[in-house]
């Protein structure tokens, strides 16, 4: 049986705070309460992932969740993902308008490049777009060559800025996966906030070599893909869980200050005919609720920053 070197019992980071220097250790309950505009209690951040999963997926260093799983050409997964960008998204947009929801769109740059109709539709609506990386197969990962990643981030942001005419200050890495350099490269390229670290319920300061980023809480736990495709719960169960989460956060806001309900949703998941009614059910309840502030990711960041 292989044995371990005695170094395995050495713990160089065993001291107060985190085992890295990216952010301060802090418990939510110890922080200053945030007040949302107009006395609202829960900020609703509906974040729509607009994704391109290439058919010729390389899977370096791993296959992205939701990506191709069959031998090439995996038409079933390719086309079912594409369904979201052709059909599902238009069901989403109709629902947002019906229930007065302000969405934010996290878009793969390659998708914006491939479908001018879609990116211009979003652009004309005036909704915020953030960058979701190049495509779902261009992962950011530990050990990645830094110049390669630097070029990937630069290209993803420059192209998306050009195509949308927006500043593009928000970022989600594909699979919320990063290298050790990703936050530094994001801040170097004009990003203000990112959503990869699902370790809080409120924004917090994240240190980089080029000043702080705002880490925004976009829980994977409430993600439609995670609940429906990973946990294999029904879409009705998804809606139940969102409503239970909302009720809890609303209650907590009475003592803890403003809270955020962040829904990461994908038109290829909830945009299906048998599922859309459950998204509508949730949006109807939240969109019409007097304590809910439906707004964009950047608005939440700005209000939070102004009260730090």
């Amino acid at each position, binding site marked *: 049986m292989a044995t371990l070197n005695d170094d*395995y019992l050495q*713990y160089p980071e065993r001291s*107060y705070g*985190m085992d890295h220097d990216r952010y301060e250790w802090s418990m939510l309950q110890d922080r200053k309460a945030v007040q949302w505009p107009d006395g609202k209690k829960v900020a609703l951040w509906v974040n729509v992932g607009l994704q391109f999963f290439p058919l010729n997926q390389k899977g370096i260093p791993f296959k992205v969740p939701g990506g191709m799983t069959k031998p090439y050409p995996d038409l079933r997964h390719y086309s079912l993902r594409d369904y979201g960008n052709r059909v599902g998204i238009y069901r989403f947009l109709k629902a947002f308008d019906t229930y007065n929801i302000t969405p934010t769109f996290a878009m793969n740059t390659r998708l914006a490049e491939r479908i001018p109709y879609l990116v211009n539709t979003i652009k004309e609506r005036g909704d915020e777009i953030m960058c979701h990386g190049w495509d779902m197969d261009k992962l950011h990962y530990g*050990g990645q060559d830094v110049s390669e990643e630097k070029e990937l981030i630069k290209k993803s942001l420059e192209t998306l800025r050009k195509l949308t005419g927006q500043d593009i200050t928000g970022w989600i890495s594909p699979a919320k996966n990063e290298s050790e350099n990703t936050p530094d490269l994001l801040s170097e390229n004009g990003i203000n906030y990112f959503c990869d670290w699902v370790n809080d319920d409120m924004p917090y300061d994240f240190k980089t070599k080029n000043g702080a980023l705002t880490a925004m809480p976009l829980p994977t*736990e409430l993600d439609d893909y995670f609940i429906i495709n990973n946990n294999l719960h029904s879409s009705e169960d998804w809606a139940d869980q969102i409503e239970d989460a909302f009720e809890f956060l609303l209650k907590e806001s009475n003592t803890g200050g403003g809270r955020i*309900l962040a829904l990461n949703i994908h038109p290829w998941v909830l945009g299906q005919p048998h599922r859309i009614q459950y998204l509508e059910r949730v949006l109807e309840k939240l969109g019409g609720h007097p304590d809910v502030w439906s707004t964009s990711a950047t608005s939440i960041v700005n209000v939070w920053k102004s009260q730090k």
Partner: protein
Amino acid sequence: MKEDPGYYDYWPYENRPKIEWPNGAKVAFWVAPNIEFYELNPPDNPFRKPWPQPCPALPGYTSRDWGNRVGHVRQMELLEKYGIRGSISLSTALCDHHPEIIKMSKERDWEFFSHGIYNTRYTYGMTEAQERKMIKDSIETIYKHTGQKCAGYLAPALSHSENTLDLFAEVGTELFGNEAGIYSCDLFHDDQPTPIHLRSGKKFASIPYSLEMNDTIAYLVQKITPRRYGKELKDNFDRLYAEGAQSGTIMCIPTHNYQVSNAHRIKAYEEALEYITGHSDVWVTTGKEIAQYFLDNYYDDSLADIETKNKKYGNA
């Protein structure tokens, strides 16, 4: 390698000596929050990869960190509301990283037991001397930060060696005599406490710490819905409560702040806690109190009954 760990004998779940919990309770009920620290860049272990992605493996690391930043206080307040003292399965390095959590749990008279140093350091591949050193470090750390003499053990990330239970009991004795190292949560073979064979002959018990009721098993492995989890907790309780009239049973809910405290899950958990603690003949207690009570009152009778039952048809 052995065919059988040799820690316990066969003991049929019928006609056992009756266990009577304090005040005639039918069920001893305890909640074991795992308060863990997972490392961003743990060292390699040849037998188990800590994370599925290359480090920094954000999906796993950040969700565990959420448990400490947000989830702990939520669960703590909930347990307090229902008069439950947590029995913490502790990554003992957390005493150094997050002493605030230790302090607030100690103020509520919670029990702390050892769950190793970090949940990203596995026992696999350790020599006996290394494992002994790791266990000793964890017990000493608990004593230093809480003043408690660590009674229980759950191996880090449930990674074991053939010597784990022996070493824990021996280090407990070396440091604090019979006050420390008296029970294990590592075995899932029973709904009642079981005497454990150790090479030292020390009186030691296995206390049921249900993997089936463990929120991480329910949510990450079985992937059930929160409402389903709440129902399973109640169903588990109902059966153990009914059988507890015959002889006292144990119900444990092992939890993780990064699972059960999520906004979409905590309501179902609360409903189950309200239901369980709403019964008057339930002993709401801690792992150590159950273990000590069993060792003091039923250990010898249990050993005798096990021997009688196994002689009935002849030993195997």
